[in-house]
């Protein structure tokens, strides 16, 4: 187990090195937060209580989105580019010889990365958002704790999806296309472009049942106190269930894929 803790710490430290990039990214998250917050304010001015949120809750949703955008890698940019590159160049063969599990190894690193982005790029935009707009912040420490659990589960689901996508590199020569389609779907079905409870009818039901809703919609509803008691347990079960299914699918695909690896001597 220790090795994975070291890998996770490494993932954290590695992203912490890019200080200027973190400042630049925080600036960008804040700018987008303002733009989206104003459009939502116009929307909720027309229809107060849209989607069961009041205006303060809608504003909170916006800034949670900015805080979790990098944490849950909704636009990509996590480990997947590197894993794909290693598969393409054949370096993956070295990884397979390591006395550590391939999937857990990358998961540990990604958790470290997510932890850094949560602290480095999540807190500052959220604080600025709270100064500029009236936000609905939880009062109870238990809600904060439940939110953190939900975020961790969201990161694991996000990892599991991206691991599957990265493994596609075993079959494709160039993975740029799948990566792009993957982050687009993530962006749309996570609630990042519009909260999923505003999606009408069947589209909304499908969107809320898909794994991507675990990235933002579910943690945001936990944060806003929309899911308490058994409903909270249901939220966790939803996220954990998807995490399990997708991680197992990744494991299965991994064993199929690694049979394709041919190590060339010379």
């Amino acid at each position: 187990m220790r090795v994975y803790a070291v890998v996770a710490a490494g993932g954290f430290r590695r992203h912490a090195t890019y200080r200027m990039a973190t400042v630049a990214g925080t600036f960008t998250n804040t700018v987008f937060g303002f733009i989206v917050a104003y459009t939502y304010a116009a929307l909720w001015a027309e229809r107060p209580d849209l989607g069961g949120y009041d205006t303060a809750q809608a504003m909170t949703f916006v800034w949670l989105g900015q805080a979790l955008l990098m944490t849950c890698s909704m636009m990509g940019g996590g480990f997947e580019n590197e894993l794909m590159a290693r598969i393409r160049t054949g370096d993956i063969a070295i990884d397979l010889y390591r006395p550590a599990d391939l999937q857990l190894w990358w998961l540990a690193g990604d958790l470290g990365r997510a932890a850094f982005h949560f602290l480095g790029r999540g807190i500052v935009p959220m604080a600025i958002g709270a100064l500029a707009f009236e936000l609905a912040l939880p009062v109870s420490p238990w809600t904060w704790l439940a939110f953190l659990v939900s975020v961790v589960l969201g990161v694991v689901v996000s990892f599991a999806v991206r691991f599957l996508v990265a493994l596609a590199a075993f079959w494709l020569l160039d993975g740029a296309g799948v990566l792009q389609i993957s982050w687009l779907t993530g962006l749309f079905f996570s609630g990042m472009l519009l909260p999923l409870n505003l999606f009408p009818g069947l589209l909304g039901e499908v969107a809320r049942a898909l794994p991507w809703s675990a990235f933002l919609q579910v943690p945001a509803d936990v944060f806003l106190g929309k899911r308490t008691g058994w409903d909270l347990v249901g939220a966790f079960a939803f996220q954990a269930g998807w995490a399990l299914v997708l991680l197992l699918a990744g494991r299965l695909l991994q064993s199929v894929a690694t049979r394709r690896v041919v190590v060339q001597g010379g």
Partner: protein
Amino acid sequence: MAYAPRGGGRSQAAEGLRAYRLIAGMWIRSTMAYRASFVMTTLGNFLSTVFDFVAIMLMFSHVDALGGYSLPEIALLYGMAATAFGLADLLLGSLDRIGERVRDGTLDTLLVRPVPVLVQVAADRFALRRTGRIIQGLMVLGYALVVLDIEWTPLKVLLVPLAVVSGGAVFGAVYVAGSALQFFALDAAEVQSSFTYGGQTLLQYPPTVFARELVRGVTFVVPLAFVSWLPALYVLGREYPVALPQWVAFLSPVVAAGCGLLAGLAWRTGLRAYRSTGS
């Protein structure tokens, strides 16, 4: 263009364009080697912007107006902003990799070649897939022009393409200026996104949605308002929330030229401050 001719004047600008064409052509041929991936990424680029507009349409499934504007009116703003940004992104989108180039030392190679550095960096990895954004922008613009009930005058007809092309130049200037900044702050590529992608997102919505100070900033400081807000509001016959005379809507080309000039100066300052990492 930021490239400063050193005496040859016009002919050197033409040389720069020729070089851009050659480098871009090379990259087009190379992307065509992976045709399936090209089709997928073009479709992806197209869809990424489609999702943006779908989100706006989903908003309009709940309301009839946003900031006092109807869906077709917002489509006009959206179409103009997206097309203008798409043009800049296609031609200069690769510029945001300048920090990476400084870091890994590949910028040095470009300095010794007899082609302006700006041209080389901009044309590098020229991505034809970025036309996806332009196509989507034009489709939304087309929808708006068909659905809207506008009293067309020759001036209005002239204004739409004029604003889109000038808007592309304004966004282009933002790309160049942002890249110049990266000579000083290597990892700051994302700041550029606030003004490029952020600017487009802002311009998709009517100015009435935003705080007065923000509208002023986008009009007078970083003059993105000239890309879509001012010309589109003139076409729609609506009043601009910041008191300005009507003819200002026609200033887009002048504003674009001014921005280009400033961006060019910024680029030259950045390039002059460049010290190789020596790696």
